[in-house]
């Protein structure tokens, strides 16, 4: 039964996913097992994205279906992102208010088993540091769309060093104008231009390789 659930999610059949969740519940399947089936689907979707068979629309839609499936179970997203894969502190850095990409990354990370602490937009450097410390986060995601926000990214990386936390966290940067050269230049640990890149980078950070 959970195979049906997984395949329905992978094929973006939203109504079928919800029906399968209800059926699994009625058959006595536990919520953790249902969530595991959904997360297996998310993993498959991520693999298809990496292979070039799926695209951003599938990542977004599957995360939405995942969320609705949790609601069907009477749970919210925190049931799935209880830190099973670790905590990611995420935000758009100071001086930049663009949030579309950051929001998509939050949804997809969450649906892939990460606890996400979303700090919003125009986030000062110290707020990232405080949130990382408060939530014992090992992964930090800095987002921007504007090249003029690069200094704020660099300041945020420096703030972690000043707080003595730099070696405790992996800092990934994301957004339209970023790349790995820039990550090195800013002192970050990696860069991504898609939500799946974030899943992979965060996975490597917390699990030492596998996404």
């Amino acid at each position, binding site marked *: 039964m959970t195979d049906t659930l997984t395949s329905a999610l992978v094929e973006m059949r*939203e109504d079928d996913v919800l029906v399968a969740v209800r059926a699994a519940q009625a058959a006595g399947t536990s919520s953790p097992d249902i969530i595991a089936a959904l997360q297996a689907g998310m993993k498959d979707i991520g693999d298809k994205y990496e292979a070039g068979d799926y*695209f*951003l*629309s599938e990542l977004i839609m599957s995360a939405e279906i995942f969320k609705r499936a949790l609601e069907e179970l009477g749970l919210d997203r925190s049931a799935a992102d209880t830190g099973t894969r670790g905590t990611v502190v995420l935000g758009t850095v100071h001086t930049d*208010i663009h949030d*579309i990409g950051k929001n998509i990354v939050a949804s997809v990370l969450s649906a892939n088993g990460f606890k996400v602490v979303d700090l919003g937009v125009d986030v000062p450097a110290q707020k990232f540091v405080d949130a990382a410390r408060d939530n014992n986060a090992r992964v930090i995601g800095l987002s921007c769309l504007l090249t003029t926000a690069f200094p704020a990214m660099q300041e945020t990386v420096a703030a972690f060093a000043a707080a003595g936390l730099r070696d405790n966290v992996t800092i990934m940067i994301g957004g339209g*104008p970023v790349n790995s050269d*820039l990550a090195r230049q800013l002192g970050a640990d990696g860069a991504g231009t*898609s939500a799946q890149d974030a899943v992979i980078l965060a996975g490597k950070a917390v699990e030492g390789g596998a996404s």
Partner: protein
Amino acid sequence: MIAPSDDPRRERLRKAVALETVDKVPVCLEGVAWSARVTGMTLKTFLSDPLLATQANIEAFELVGNADSVNNPTFDVSSLSFLWMTRVKRPGYGGLGDDEPWQVEESGLMTLEDYDAIIEGGWAPFQIAYLNERVAPGKFEDFIKFVQGTGAVVEKANAASMPFLAVGVLTTPFEFLCGGRSFSQFVFDLYRTPDKVEAAMQAMMPGLSDAGLGLSAAVGAPGIWIGGWRSASKMLAQPLWDRFVFPYMKEIIAQTVAAGITPILHLDSDWTRDLPRLLELPAKTCVLSLDSMTDIRKAKEIVGDHMCIMGDVPPALLSSGTPEQVYDYCSKLLTDVGPTGLILQSGCDIPVDAPLANVKAMADAAADA
């Protein structure tokens, strides 16, 4: 279309589009905000009058010295609200400093019910009411006022002998609706209510591009942008792109060519997957403008004998690299993608904080090649 000209810069552009041999790869500056910053004008001032924006473009063009054209001779953020159906924070207002870049506030002002309103009443009445009632009072009139100044802008650019490629932007129904709904919500709509979205798109098409094409023809602009941002291949599953993007883009391009205007396909993000589909467009007529996310060498391989390619010096390189790094990138690009059928340009806009030396390095690379 770009007419034959005694001006060697315009002639280079014409030959690049026609895939003819050029004496030098033409360089185009797409530096709206950058032109303000590099000439010492605040962005608030830049946006206060289309002619001031043109003045900044002219001065920046002269500072670079050996570029062949600018992409657009002026700019106003009201055009972003018009295209993306959303609010845009202006420098000097709403908490932004006078010289901070404008920022798009995508807040999903369009509702699911709006598709019915578009289907029943057509696009233009809906868009006018939407801009004025949901984006900001008078927003549509702001945009019209900007557009009405185009004649004076063109006159000023011509008087300064600054070639330009376009004064207007067209786009597909997808981009208007996606901006209004916000990206994620629009993706949900495409999966959940595809027939309704499609009906709205079809209702939008009649007359959608008439004003932009008419304006371009009236002022003698050689080209017009046809923008693609969120409709990029990387953003969408193949069946969604095939159904909701390309048919409309192809139709708008056909209308543009029929009007005698060069389609400048301003395609941000990654369109690599669907490059072969661009072979369905008229040959030696379009310009494919890439922002560095699409594989430009793959583009050369697939459509290089079919259309001119423009781009794609990465914004991060122009902003944070050295002049030597920019020069090296451009030199390699000129070898790999040029010299025929290439216009060297930044990938999308030159970032506002790009040093002048980096932009000059881009132009110098073409001059030295």
